[in-house]
């Protein structure tokens, strides 16, 4: 089976994000990047499929130089091949553009199934999987928590999460599957895997190679402004002797009807 996983590198979820002075993007300096957590479920599922049905797992990303680290993480977990499409994406929050690029790249390689995360935790668009499927003319299932593939029949049984229930779906293959938390437990890469990943040569292609112009992922949207959430109110501080401050505190709590 030819299994493809699309991954995205995103700021570490523990990063404290700062808005840049222009107010249209974030300050990139000092940010640590990780593989989008939902993509990790997709990678793990691809490895499980390979272990069950044989075949090959190829991971692919479109992003700047640093994005190659996301590919190495996937290789360390056990993916066989990686493809890096060089593209800056610093200010793009446009999943459609990313999907278009990815669709062009995927036309060049064979695949039986395409996996990705249900959304990237940086822009939270959740539009990439459906858009990719649309560009490729394939069916897609999103928010997936269960997957059984029957390569002979060219079909997959998919479980997806919906409000308060589960949906069981049969889809023909190839299809685009977008992973949700709960699909599996991503593995801790073995030392040998990490070393092999470090040494692997990863082919790079440019947007021009894919017949696109420019160096940035094509965008159909534009960020007008970005704002941090309003800061939390400072609260109140009572100073003085305990007898007095406690009495004031109790009064304040009663006034708010909290006690």
């Amino acid at each position, binding site marked *: 089976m030819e299994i493809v996983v699309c991954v995205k590198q995103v700021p570490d979820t523990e990063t404290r994000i700062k808005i840049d002075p222009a107010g249209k993007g974030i300050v990139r300096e000092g940010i640590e990047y990780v593989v989008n957590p939902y993509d990790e479920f997709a990678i793990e599922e691809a490895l499980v499929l390979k272990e069950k049905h044989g075949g090959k797992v190829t991971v692919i990303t479109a992003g700047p130089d640093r994005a190659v680290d996301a590919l190495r993480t996937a290789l360390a977990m056990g993916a066989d091949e990686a493809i890096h499409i060089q593209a800056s994406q610093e200010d793009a929050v446009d999943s459609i553009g990313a999907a278009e690029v990815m669709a062009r790249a995927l036309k060049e390689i064979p695949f039986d199934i395409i996996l990705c995360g249900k959304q990237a935790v940086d822009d939270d668009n959740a539009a990439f999987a459906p858009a990719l499927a649309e560009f490729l003319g394939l069916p897609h299932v999103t928010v997936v928590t269960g997957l059984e593939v029957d390569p002979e029949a060219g079909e997959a049984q998919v479980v997806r999460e919906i409000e308060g229930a589960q949906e069981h779906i049969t889809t023909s293959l190839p299809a685009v599957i977008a992973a949700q938390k709960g699909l599996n437990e991503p593995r*801790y890469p*073995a030392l040998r895997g990490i070393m092999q990943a470090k040494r692997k040569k990863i082919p790079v292609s440019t947007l021009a190679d894919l017949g696109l112009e420019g160096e940035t992922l094509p965008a159909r949207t534009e960020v007008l402004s970005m704002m941090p959430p309003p800061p939390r109110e400072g609260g109140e501080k009572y100073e003085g002797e305990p007898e007095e401050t406690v009495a004031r505190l109790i009064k304040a709590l009663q006034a708010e009807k909290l006690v």
Partner: protein
Amino acid sequence: MAEKFDGIVVGAGPAGIAAALRMAGAGMKVAVIERGEYPGSKNVMGGILYRQPTEELVPRFYEEAPLERPITESRLWLMGDGNVVSIGCRAAAFAEEPHNAYSVLRAKFDQWFASKAVEKGALVLCETVVRDCLTEGDRVVGIRTDRPQGELLADVVVLADGVNSLLARELDMREEIRPDRVAQAVKEVISLPPGKIEDRFNIERGEGVSIEAIGDATRGLVGTAWIYTNRDSISIGVGGLLEGVGHRRLRPNDLIEHFKGLPPVRRLIEGGKTEEYLAHLIPEGGYRSLPRLVGKGVMVVGDAAMLVNGLHREGSNMAMISGKFAGEAAVEAWKRGDFSRRSLEAYVDKLKDSFIIKDLKKYSRALPFFERNPHFFRLYPGLVGRAVAEFLTVDGVPKREKQARIFDILYERGRWNLYRDLYNAWRVLR
């Protein structure tokens, strides 16, 4: 079958990377294992990096390394009884390239330093903890990590795993940490706009200040507090002997909050935002607590070997140079194909011939002396402040009488005690 390397380094701090640079640079096949997310992610340093030792590893590093500010002025503050006596030095040479020292943020610097070892061909593996050394009899032959299929073999293992070095302890090369031989340090990075920093510290863009403070700065503990200017932040910290911290039931956090609250400090950091807070140990045992530095197929470097000169806040330089020596000894052993203990002893010989062991020996009596005589930190900084203040107070008192008053202040512990203290301090420091 586990993969075999010529050399494995545990820990990607300054010591470990220096060793890896030397080994990989000579063509050895080297792996560095680091438990942090990336080199530097777990490392704490108040942040002064010295140029000369760093250049021994990467010549002209200052042209490309992520440095904060050159240190163009150093100040010493004696604090007590609400007074501060400040002694400063702005040496002409400090202001010129190549500078004597720089402030750095380790999270950035270590990552860059490690990238130099990668350029030389070393394999740096992060987010991987070394659990123990693999041994055959009394020879170290590799390491075991916390990862699946996590064993690696090597002719020589360099332990650069920092002050706690569990690995050196497991090999019985080192004793348990003693509270009277390590300092508890707490550090914060506080962000401030560059313009504010330059105004408050009276410097230009591209200049930096280091301040060392004793006395009330550490609440009289044997130790120091410090403030270093970064580009758009300030590193501030306090370190005191763990024993003193424990005796007086001080929490590390109380120490730094006390220092930050002192008026001269408060003004420098006002309006800044705390970005990071870290607590860490600093080995201060010096010469007396040196571990066994080599064994069959193994060497211990940097903080793991307790190579720190606390009095002069030199740690990263000793770490780098000890790592360099160990790396060189490993390369010679590799060329001879002999990794026996005797072969690796070359590392110890190099250390002994260098400033590292010489300085640690020179100061070996200093720490126990100051521990026995805590008034050097608790009382004298305050006395100096009061004496200088008296001297500067114009109040109609004739100068001869003034002089007598000043001596009265300085003789608070008794005239002979003062002379004896000064003589003894001179003896342990000379």
